[in-house]
Protein backbone atom coordinates (compact mmCIF):
# COMPACT_ATOMS: atom_id res chain seq x y z
CA UNK A 1 0.00 0.00 0.00
CA UNK A 2 1.01 3.61 -0.61
CA UNK A 3 0.14 6.21 2.02
CA UNK A 4 -0.91 9.67 0.86
CA UNK A 5 -0.68 12.52 3.33
CA UNK A 6 -3.56 15.00 3.05
CA UNK A 7 -2.74 18.59 4.09
CA UNK A 8 -4.94 20.14 6.75
CA UNK A 9 -6.85 22.53 4.42
CA UNK A 10 -7.98 19.66 2.21
CA UNK A 11 -9.00 17.17 4.89
CA UNK A 12 -12.57 18.36 4.81
CA UNK A 13 -12.68 16.92 1.30
CA UNK A 14 -11.23 13.59 2.46
CA UNK A 15 -13.57 12.66 5.28
CA UNK A 16 -11.25 14.50 7.71
CA UNK A 17 -8.53 11.91 7.20
CA UNK A 18 -4.85 12.91 7.41
CA UNK A 19 -3.71 9.82 5.52
CA UNK A 20 -5.27 7.69 2.83
CA UNK A 21 -3.89 4.33 1.69
CA UNK A 22 -4.07 3.27 -1.94
CA UNK A 23 -2.63 0.62 -4.23
CA UNK A 24 -0.60 2.15 -7.03
CA UNK A 25 2.47 1.53 -9.16
CA UNK A 26 3.28 5.18 -9.76
CA UNK A 27 2.31 8.67 -8.59
CA UNK A 28 -0.30 9.18 -11.29
CA UNK A 29 -2.13 6.00 -10.25
CA UNK A 30 -1.91 6.92 -6.59
CA UNK A 31 -3.43 10.35 -7.08
CA UNK A 32 -6.14 8.95 -9.36
CA UNK A 33 -7.00 6.37 -6.71
CA UNK A 34 -7.13 9.08 -4.07
CA UNK A 35 -9.55 11.22 -6.06
CA UNK A 36 -11.65 8.15 -6.84
CA UNK A 37 -12.02 7.49 -3.13
CA UNK A 38 -12.57 11.19 -2.34
CA UNK A 39 -13.91 12.90 -5.50
CA UNK A 40 -14.32 16.23 -3.69
CA UNK A 41 -10.53 16.54 -3.68
CA UNK A 42 -10.39 16.55 -7.48
CA UNK A 43 -10.65 20.30 -8.15
CA UNK A 44 -8.01 20.99 -5.51
CA UNK A 45 -5.49 18.63 -7.11
CA UNK A 46 -6.21 18.65 -10.85
CA UNK A 47 -6.70 21.62 -13.14
CA UNK A 48 -9.21 21.74 -15.98
CA UNK A 49 -6.76 19.87 -18.19
CA UNK A 50 -6.57 17.06 -15.64
CA UNK A 51 -2.97 17.96 -14.86
CA UNK A 52 -1.70 18.44 -11.33
CA UNK A 53 -2.52 22.03 -10.41
CA UNK A 54 0.28 24.56 -10.69
CA UNK A 55 0.15 25.39 -6.99
CA UNK A 56 0.11 21.80 -5.73
CA UNK A 57 3.34 20.02 -4.90
CA UNK A 58 3.62 16.27 -4.52
CA UNK A 59 6.47 14.88 -2.49
CA UNK A 60 7.71 11.32 -2.27
CA UNK A 61 9.25 11.25 1.15
CA UNK A 62 11.36 14.41 1.22
CA UNK A 63 11.66 14.71 -2.55
CA UNK A 64 9.61 16.76 -4.99
CA UNK A 65 8.40 14.39 -7.70
CA UNK A 66 9.20 17.11 -10.26
CA UNK A 67 12.85 16.39 -9.52
CA UNK A 68 12.24 12.68 -10.19
CA UNK A 69 10.00 11.38 -12.95
CA UNK A 70 7.01 13.58 -12.18
CA UNK A 71 3.71 11.71 -12.05
CA UNK A 72 5.44 8.74 -13.69
CA UNK A 73 7.66 8.28 -10.65
CA UNK A 74 7.50 4.64 -9.66
CA UNK A 75 6.34 3.72 -6.16
CA UNK A 76 7.08 0.75 -3.98
CA UNK A 77 5.25 -0.83 -1.08
CA UNK A 78 5.31 1.43 1.97
CA UNK A 79 6.11 4.68 0.12
CA UNK A 80 4.55 7.86 1.46
CA UNK A 81 3.37 10.64 -0.80
CA UNK A 82 2.49 14.08 0.52
CA UNK A 83 0.22 16.61 -1.13
CA UNK A 84 1.52 20.07 -0.29
CA UNK A 85 -0.23 23.31 -1.18
CA UNK A 86 2.10 26.03 -2.42
CA UNK A 87 2.14 28.77 0.21
CA UNK A 88 3.04 32.20 -1.12
CA UNK A 89 1.76 35.73 -1.55
CA UNK A 90 2.75 39.30 -1.02
CA UNK A 91 1.74 42.87 -1.56
CA UNK A 92 0.74 44.36 -4.90
Amino acid at each position, binding site marked *: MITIFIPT*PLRRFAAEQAKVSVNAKNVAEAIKSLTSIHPSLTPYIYDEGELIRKHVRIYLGEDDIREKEGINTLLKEGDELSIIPAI*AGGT*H
Partner: protein
Amino acid sequence: MSTSIDKDILSGIEAHLESAYPNEACGFLLGTQVQKKRDITHLIKVDNQSSENQRRRFVIDPLDYLKAERFATKEGLTLLGIYHSHPDHPAIPSVHDLEFAQPFFSYFIHTISEGKMTDTRSYRLLDGKFIEEKFTSNQYPLPSHNSQLTPHD
Protein backbone atom coordinates in the same frame (compact mmCIF):
# COMPACT_ATOMS: atom_id res chain seq x y z
CA MET B 1 -16.74 30.58 14.10
CA SER B 2 -14.65 32.32 16.72
CA THR B 3 -10.89 32.75 16.47
CA SER B 4 -8.57 33.73 19.28
CA ILE B 5 -4.80 34.20 19.26
CA ASP B 6 -2.60 34.04 22.31
CA LYS B 7 -0.85 37.28 23.28
CA ASP B 8 2.55 35.62 23.26
CA ILE B 9 1.95 34.47 19.71
CA LEU B 10 1.06 37.99 18.61
CA SER B 11 4.19 39.27 20.34
CA GLY B 12 6.27 36.60 18.60
CA ILE B 13 4.79 37.53 15.23
CA GLU B 14 5.45 41.20 15.89
CA ALA B 15 9.10 40.57 16.78
CA HIS B 16 9.62 38.30 13.77
CA LEU B 17 8.04 40.60 11.22
CA GLU B 18 9.68 43.75 12.56
CA SER B 19 13.10 42.11 12.52
CA ALA B 20 12.64 41.15 8.86
CA TYR B 21 11.54 44.64 7.78
CA PRO B 22 11.72 45.96 5.07
CA ASN B 23 11.36 42.42 3.72
CA GLU B 24 8.24 40.33 3.99
CA ALA B 25 8.35 37.55 6.54
CA CYS B 26 6.05 34.63 7.19
CA GLY B 27 5.23 31.64 9.32
CA PHE B 28 2.66 29.11 10.43
CA LEU B 29 -0.05 29.35 13.06
CA LEU B 30 -1.05 26.26 15.03
CA GLY B 31 -3.43 25.46 17.81
CA THR B 32 -6.70 23.73 18.35
CA GLN B 33 -10.12 23.84 16.83
CA VAL B 34 -13.11 22.38 18.57
CA GLN B 35 -16.23 22.66 16.50
CA LYS B 36 -16.34 26.37 15.61
CA LYS B 37 -13.89 27.60 18.24
CA ARG B 38 -10.36 28.17 16.93
CA ASP B 39 -7.52 28.92 19.36
CA ILE B 40 -4.08 29.82 17.98
CA THR B 41 -1.46 28.89 20.56
CA HIS B 42 1.74 28.19 18.63
CA LEU B 43 3.71 29.72 15.79
CA ILE B 44 6.48 28.42 13.59
CA LYS B 45 8.71 31.02 11.96
CA VAL B 46 10.04 30.09 8.53
CA ASP B 47 12.37 31.75 6.06
CA ASN B 48 10.94 33.67 3.16
CA GLN B 49 12.20 31.66 0.18
CA SER B 50 11.04 34.06 -2.50
CA SER B 51 13.60 34.52 -5.24
CA GLU B 52 11.75 37.67 -6.35
CA ASN B 53 11.76 40.95 -4.46
CA GLN B 54 11.33 39.89 -0.83
CA ARG B 55 9.98 43.34 -0.02
CA ARG B 56 6.90 42.40 -2.01
CA ARG B 57 6.74 38.61 -2.06
CA PHE B 58 6.94 35.64 0.26
CA VAL B 59 7.24 31.95 -0.53
CA ILE B 60 7.32 29.10 1.96
CA ASP B 61 9.43 26.03 1.18
CA PRO B 62 7.20 22.95 0.73
CA LEU B 63 9.46 21.03 3.11
CA ASP B 64 8.87 23.69 5.77
CA TYR B 65 5.16 23.15 5.19
CA LEU B 66 5.58 19.42 5.63
CA LYS B 67 7.60 19.93 8.82
CA ALA B 68 4.87 22.19 10.22
CA GLU B 69 2.23 19.54 9.51
CA ARG B 70 4.38 16.86 11.14
CA PHE B 71 5.00 19.06 14.18
CA ALA B 72 1.26 19.65 14.51
CA THR B 73 0.56 15.92 14.35
CA LYS B 74 3.27 15.13 16.89
CA GLU B 75 2.04 17.76 19.34
CA GLY B 76 -1.65 17.04 18.92
CA LEU B 77 -2.21 20.43 17.29
CA THR B 78 -3.83 21.58 14.08
CA LEU B 79 -2.21 23.73 11.42
CA LEU B 80 -4.64 26.65 11.46
CA GLY B 81 -3.12 29.29 9.25
CA ILE B 82 -0.37 31.46 7.88
CA TYR B 83 0.92 34.85 8.93
CA HIS B 84 2.88 37.28 6.82
CA SER B 85 3.76 40.94 6.68
CA HIS B 86 2.91 43.69 4.26
CA PRO B 87 5.80 46.13 4.72
CA ASP B 88 4.52 49.70 4.39
CA HIS B 89 1.27 48.46 2.89
CA PRO B 90 -2.23 47.90 4.28
CA ALA B 91 -3.10 44.60 5.92
CA ILE B 92 -5.39 43.75 3.03
CA PRO B 93 -4.96 40.61 0.89
CA SER B 94 -3.41 41.16 -2.53
CA VAL B 95 -4.20 39.29 -5.72
CA HIS B 96 -1.06 37.26 -5.01
CA ASP B 97 -2.37 36.31 -1.57
CA LEU B 98 -5.66 35.25 -3.12
CA GLU B 99 -3.98 33.23 -5.86
CA PHE B 100 -2.38 30.94 -3.29
CA ALA B 101 -5.12 30.96 -0.65
CA GLN B 102 -6.29 27.66 0.80
CA PRO B 103 -9.64 26.84 2.35
CA PHE B 104 -9.82 26.46 6.13
CA PHE B 105 -6.72 28.51 6.96
CA SER B 106 -6.75 31.81 8.81
CA TYR B 107 -4.55 34.28 6.99
CA PHE B 108 -3.12 36.82 9.41
CA ILE B 109 -1.73 39.85 7.57
CA HIS B 110 0.26 42.48 9.42
CA THR B 111 1.18 45.96 8.32
CA ILE B 112 4.75 46.88 9.24
CA SER B 113 5.10 50.64 8.86
CA GLU B 114 8.64 51.97 9.04
CA GLY B 115 9.66 48.91 11.02
CA LYS B 116 6.77 48.82 13.48
CA MET B 117 3.68 46.63 13.41
CA THR B 118 0.68 48.93 13.15
CA ASP B 119 -2.19 46.73 12.02
CA THR B 120 -3.24 43.09 12.18
CA ARG B 121 -6.13 41.55 10.33
CA SER B 122 -7.20 38.01 9.58
CA TYR B 123 -9.01 36.58 6.59
CA ARG B 124 -10.57 33.29 5.53
CA LEU B 125 -11.25 32.04 2.04
CA LEU B 126 -14.95 31.72 1.29
CA ASP B 127 -16.30 30.89 -2.16
CA GLY B 128 -13.06 32.00 -3.77
CA LYS B 129 -12.90 35.33 -1.94
CA PHE B 130 -11.20 36.54 1.21
CA ILE B 131 -13.56 37.45 4.02
CA GLU B 132 -12.16 39.30 7.03
CA GLU B 133 -12.64 37.29 10.22
CA LYS B 134 -12.93 38.78 13.66
CA PHE B 135 -10.53 37.51 16.25
CA THR B 136 -9.80 38.08 19.89
CA SER B 137 -6.60 38.17 21.87
CA ASN B 138 -5.75 38.19 25.54
CA GLN B 139 -3.19 40.87 24.75
CA TYR B 140 -3.92 44.35 25.98
CA PRO B 141 -3.34 46.85 24.55
CA LEU B 142 -3.67 45.28 21.13
CA PRO B 143 -0.87 45.93 18.65
CA SER B 144 -3.40 47.07 16.12
CA HIS B 145 -5.86 49.78 15.37
CA ASN B 146 -8.28 47.26 13.95
CA SER B 147 -11.60 48.14 15.48
CA GLN B 148 -12.86 44.60 14.99
CA LEU B 149 -10.48 43.20 17.57
CA THR B 150 -11.96 42.60 20.98
CA PRO B 151 -9.60 41.79 23.86
CA HIS B 152 -10.55 39.25 26.46
CA ASP B 153 -11.20 40.40 29.98
